[in-house]
């Protein structure tokens, strides 16, 4: 047998650099936009540490944290979505749709309003994400990950989790409830620095592991028998992938709340652009990061001085697309 020697992947490299450029532009725009408008040149100078103290303060102290948090969250959610789509072989199986982010939110809110447990939001959100995933897979049964049953189970779990969040919010003092509110709609306002650091570490680790198992993940697109014949350890790969997906979702939610549609839209965009046949992990992460940064930018600037949470913006942008996927007369490989 002749082994096919893979050509250098020009298309994917091009797509990735385009997305990276897009991410840089949106980041810079987001940094320069706000109540104090800073020119792009000054923004760059401030990032390099060569601006006047005032600009330096606005960019590096006030805005940079927020933009970096958004960037990390978007990348983590998009990676998690791309991974779960691959594992379930279902484009719709993303953390936002199967209720994982809602469950993580419920747990994170529990940690903030202080019901019994006082663990850090990151740990609680992780526990929530893991619980929801286990429930969704458990309820869908052995054959369930392929097909809609899995997803409706997720909708049910998401509804229960959202209701529990409401219960907790209605039972605590108004100040605690207000503190937890941004989480329930998905906003970068409530981030706490510790959670952002944990997310950055988790994202770096997750990305490295994913790069190491890319080949095994790529074979998951084929039938099980083919994947096994190609030397993939199916069970180990699936468990590792699912674990990473849960980790990334939980950590991202602990920072920005349920901005779930990013995990559907970014991988979709990446798949549409990249060469078919491979899982566009890097492209998804870049697209997700840009998406959340832009959503946050729009939310801050559209109705300024009002601030629309990024979760609402992403729902308004993302839902019509999801509807279009669902309502098209002949769906392209939905399962």
């Amino acid at each position: 047998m002749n082994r096919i020697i893979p050509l250098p992947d020009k298309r994917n490299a091009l797509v990735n650099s385009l997305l990276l450029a897009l991410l840089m532009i949106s980041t810079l725009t987001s940094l320069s936009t706000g109540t104090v408008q800073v020119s792009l040149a000054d923004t760059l100078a401030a990032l390099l540490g060569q601006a006047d103290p005032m600009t330096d303060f606005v960019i590096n102290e006030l805005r940079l944290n927020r933009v970096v948090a958004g960037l990390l969250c978007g990348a983590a959610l998009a990676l998690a979505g791309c991974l779960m789509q691959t594992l379930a072989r279902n484009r719709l199986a993303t953390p936002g749709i199967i209720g994982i982010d809602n469950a993580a939110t419920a747990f994170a809110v529990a940690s903030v309003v202080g019901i019994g447990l006082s663990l850090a939001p990151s740990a609680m959100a992780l526990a929530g994400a893991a619980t929801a995933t286990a429930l969704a897979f458990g309820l869908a049964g052995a054959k369930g990950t392929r097909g809609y049953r899995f997803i409706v189970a997720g909708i049910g779990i998401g509804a229960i989790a959202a209701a529990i969040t409401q219960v907790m919010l209605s039972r605590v003092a108004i100040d605690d409830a207000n503190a937890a509110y941004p989480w329930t709609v998905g906003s970068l306002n409530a981030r706490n620095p510790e959670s952002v650091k944990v997310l950055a570490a988790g994202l770096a680790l997750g990305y490295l592991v994913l790069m190491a198992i890319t080949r095994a993940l790529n074979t998951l697109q084929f039938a099980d028998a083919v994947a096994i014949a190609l030397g993939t350890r199916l069970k180990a790969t699936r468990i590792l992938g699912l674990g990473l997906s849960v980790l990334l979702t939980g950590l991202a939610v602990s920072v920005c709340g349920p901005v779930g549609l990013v995990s559907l839209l970014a991988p979709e965009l990446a798949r549409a652009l990249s060469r078919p046949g491979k899982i566009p992990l890097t492209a998804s992460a870049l697209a997700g990061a840009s998406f959340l940064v832009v959503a946050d930018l729009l939310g801050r600037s559209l109705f300024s001085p009002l601030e629309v949470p990024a979760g609402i913006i992403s729902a308004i942008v993302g839902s019509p697309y999801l509807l279009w996927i669902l309502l098209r007369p002949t769906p392209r490989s939905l399962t």
Partner: protein
Amino acid sequence: MNALSANRVLASRELLPQLLVAGIFLLLVILASLLLGAGPISAHVSLETLTGSTHPDAWFVISELRFPRTVIAVVTGLALGLAGALLQSMTRNPLAEPGLLGVSAGSGFAVALAILLGASTATLTTVVAQLGALAGCGLVIAATRVQGLGNDPVRLVLAGATLSGLLLALTSMLMLIDQRAADEIRFWITGSVAGKPLAVLATTLPFIGMALMLVLAVAKPLAAMSLGEKAAVGLGHHPGRIRLMVTLAVALLVGSATALAGPLIFVGLVVPFITRAIAGPDIRRTLWLCLPVGPAVVLGADVVSRLVAAPAEMPLGVVTALIGAPVLLAIVRAGRMPSL
């Protein structure tokens, strides 16, 4: 011919005791609703007040607080239960629930928009809620006509959930724009039967009356439709007309319920699920049984919402979601999707 009429007698004989039991259960729930509350008036004092003793505080609580919310919960449950049964029978989809499919959210969004634009009279809100529900219902029916989607219950539900999410996001955005409107909308949108004036009920009753007449007219043709569209045509019915009437009835019912209690999801899923389990697949019997079961479910959920978090109250929508989501899971988990 004889066998046929014997069958019919048998059917009514089976239905009557079921209706009676459900009716008695509903009466018990109504009694519980009048007796139990989150406040300091105990069930014992309430009972004495109801049977004649004068206790001004208790009398006020019962007649001014508990009685209105009981009536509103009963009417809401009736409307949502019927709407769910109708929609499920017509789309032949056990998951087709007005709340899940976005009809309630459409109605809610319309009302939020109206409040933002300055509407505050109860009448206007009711009409707007009907229009929003009609638009949502039209969308759902249009979606089921899309090739392939009608035969795929779960995909339809997912589309509905997405539509609901979109409308909820738009509603939240409206709430951000105007603080005064936001307070009014927030009070209304959480889904609750507490603190609603009976005047709203008066404005919705005509719509519910119209819907009930439509239901009476459409029940038999709908039963024929469940044999398949061709069979219905063969029996002399017009599927297009039936579909239109059902759409109207569902929109009127959901619009009224939303105007009364705000968007409540899952009620239209739970009630027909229970009644189908009791009465079997015939839509006419299901509809009859929805009359006592729907109010019992909503009112029961309301009583629970008062007691669970006492002395505070939990939003009713939360209780219905906690009851409804497991039912959704149970339906999906069943080995084979039950077809209607």
